[in-house]
């Protein structure tokens, strides 16, 4: 009986502790306080976008989860720290693609003293809530690599690939490679993700423009989880419908690598258009087994993101239009331009910096 009584008391005590700990007198509010004042204080003037002193700015670049896409962020972040004399630039991510875990990581980074955040939101439909929370606490926030779903962006700015446009370009490249007729298959990522829906729209748009000559045979989603999943899906696809397929357009990393390998090994006549510039994909472009790839600009996102965040965090500049969405660029790379595409990408990054300095930022 004694044991049971102790247990009951302890149980009651724990619940009571949770309830009572809230009773501590305090007047600090957790609720969102609108942070419109800073935006309202925008003073378009003759100031310069040359960062005066970024030593007090600690930038955290936070990917949505582990993915090869974010590899360039690490090097570019470290370079930006040196180039602009920032206090710190860290790239930190969660193991799982989970919005709640990303939110927790962001608040932990804030507690560790980071005051400017470049975030690739896990859930495009939820990330505005996260941005509002961060903004309400006075941090500079950029949406990098992916923009919030819908017309509103509550971060200071969004610098990202226009995913619908990139998918459209990829589908167009596929259609060109197919000889502008035949059947096309689209391989992509998580179906219940707003960006995937945009990619599907982009591909459908290009197919519609072919005037019925190109038929979209199938859109296969949810195969970007890992390479094995993608390899299995592509093998199944080629086994079942290999003879019918003239082109494969991929708008996610793992399906792209899997499709490049499978088409090469099976000797299928399907023309593959991949995404990103993984070494395997670039080799496949060089040997002709992949027709083209659509390359994005993650390094530019990290470099321009860190620099602009420092300008905003130090209050040297404000956004002319808060929440501005900027395309970081996407480039179709074929056998012809595979050697020199990085120059185009660097040129785009330089152009972005100029665009921010001249138009998007008001520095006073």
């Amino acid at each position, binding site marked *: 009986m004694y044991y049971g009584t102790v247990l009951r008391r302890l149980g009651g005590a724990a*619940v009571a502790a949770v309830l009572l700990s809230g009773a501590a007198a*305090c007047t600090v509010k*957790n*609720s969102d306080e609108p942070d419109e004042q800073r935006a309202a204080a925008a003073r378009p003037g003759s100031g310069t976008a040359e960062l005066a002193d970024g030593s007090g700015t600690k930038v955290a670049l936070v990917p949505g989860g582990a993915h090869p896409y974010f590899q360039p962020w690490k090097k570019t972040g470290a370079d930006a720290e040196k180039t602009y004399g920032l206090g710190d630039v860290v790239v930190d991510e969660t*193991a799982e693609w*989970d919005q709640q875990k990303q939110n927790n990581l962001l608040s932990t980074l804030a507690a560790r003293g980071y005051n400017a955040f470049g975030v690739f939101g896990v859930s495009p*439909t939820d990330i505005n809530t996260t941005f509002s929370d961060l903004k309400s606490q006075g941090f500079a926030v950029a949406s990098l690599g992916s923009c919030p779903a819908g017309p509103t962006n509550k971060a200071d700015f969004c610098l990202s690939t226009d995913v619908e446009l990139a998918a459209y370009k990829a589908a167009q490249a596929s259609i060109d490679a197919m000889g502008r007729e035949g059947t096309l298959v689209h391989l992509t990522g998580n179906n219940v993700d*707003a960006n995937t829906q945009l990619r599907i729209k982009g591909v459908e748009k290009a197919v519609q423009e072919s005037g019925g000559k190109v038929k979209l045979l199938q859109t296969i989603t949810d195969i970007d989880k890992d390479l094995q999943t993608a390899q299995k899906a592509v093998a199944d696809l080629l086994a079942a419908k290999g003879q019918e397929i003239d082109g494969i357009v991929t708008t996610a990393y793992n399906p792209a690598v899997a499709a490049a390998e499978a088409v090469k090994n099976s000797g299928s006549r399907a023309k593959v258009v991949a995404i990103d510039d993984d070494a395997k994909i670039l080799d496949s472009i060089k040997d002709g087994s992949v027709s083209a790839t659509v390359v994005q600009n993650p390094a530019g996102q990290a470099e321009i993101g860190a620099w602009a965040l420092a300008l905003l965090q130090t209050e040297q500049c404000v956004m002319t239009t808060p929440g501005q969405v900027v395309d970081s660029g996407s480039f179709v790379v074929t056998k012809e331009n595979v050697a020199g595409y990085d120059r185009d990408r660097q040129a785009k990054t330089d152009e972005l910096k100029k665009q921010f300095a001249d138009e998007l930022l008001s520095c006073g």
Partner: protein
Amino acid sequence: MRTAAVAPDAGTEEPQTPPRTSDRLPFWVNQRLGLLVLTIGLALLFGALRPAFFDARLVLFPLLRDISTLTVVALAQMVVLSVGHMNLAVGRMAAFGALFAGFGYDRLGLPLPLGLLLCLAAGAAIGALTGWIIARTGVGSFVVTLAMDFALLGLVSLAYSALTENAAFTSTPAGLDELRAYSLADICVGPVCGSPAIPQIAQFTVLALIALGFLYSCTRIGRELLLTGANPAAAELSGIPTKRRVVTAHALSGLLAALAGFMAAAGTGTFRASIGDDFMLPSFLGAVLGGTLLTGGVVSVVGALLGTSLVAVIRKGLDLLGVGLESLNIYLGCVLLLALSADRVRNVLSYRKVVRST
């Protein structure tokens, strides 16, 4: 608040232990006490290493909001564990409930409480259906809930794709943002306000804890659930409607999973298909760390809270120390292993002490 259908330590202690021995175990053997001490100790350690650990708004508030949601997830698993079953579909049931809440708010324009009720009803219904299939067919809960997990994965994704443009219900009712962002600091009696570290959303967790504590310790249904888990044949022979209790447990699990789904959606902002994706492991971790037996018959309601808190505190502390992604899970695994080993060592020591004294 650990409740057992048999002697409290049956199944975890040496089989030769006389039943009355457990009554004489010293108080420090108590697993919940150990967890509480360990959690507080670790929190103090992390606080000493990084004073920011006690930052009410940036650390404690999100930490407690996380603990609130995951405790409800652990309770959803604990309820089915009490009848010796398991619920592998706990995450999808959360997504299923959240789907109804999102639909209610977005399409039917329901106010906050009615959407929550719809969410809970949907969760309870899908849980009851699962329980009914198990009870009716006699197929193991592992198989049935695994099948239900797959079925709901497809169903929920299809529903979101068909009903929404961005695969999420983005319109939210009045009050949801406040529920997410407000703490007890927003509740003031005269000049005195509550702590900014305690999220208001924790009210659901506290209610669930109290309700389940009452169910298992004070009601006949609670006892029947535990007896069904401890020995289904004996329970059946004693006149307990075991099949009905199985349905009850699964319905309750579905309801709690749906509540957790609602809390997760409120926490991030929208009702979407990926809610609950990561619920399954924490559900077992919280419940089992807290002292609930996988074999059924023994539950610990407060243990689920403490088990979940321990894991969350370790994770947050390591995050604050800047432990990298690769190392974090290794450290987490090591600390949890130590926590469980310490519990075992305590039990063995106390057992020896009791044997010596008899």
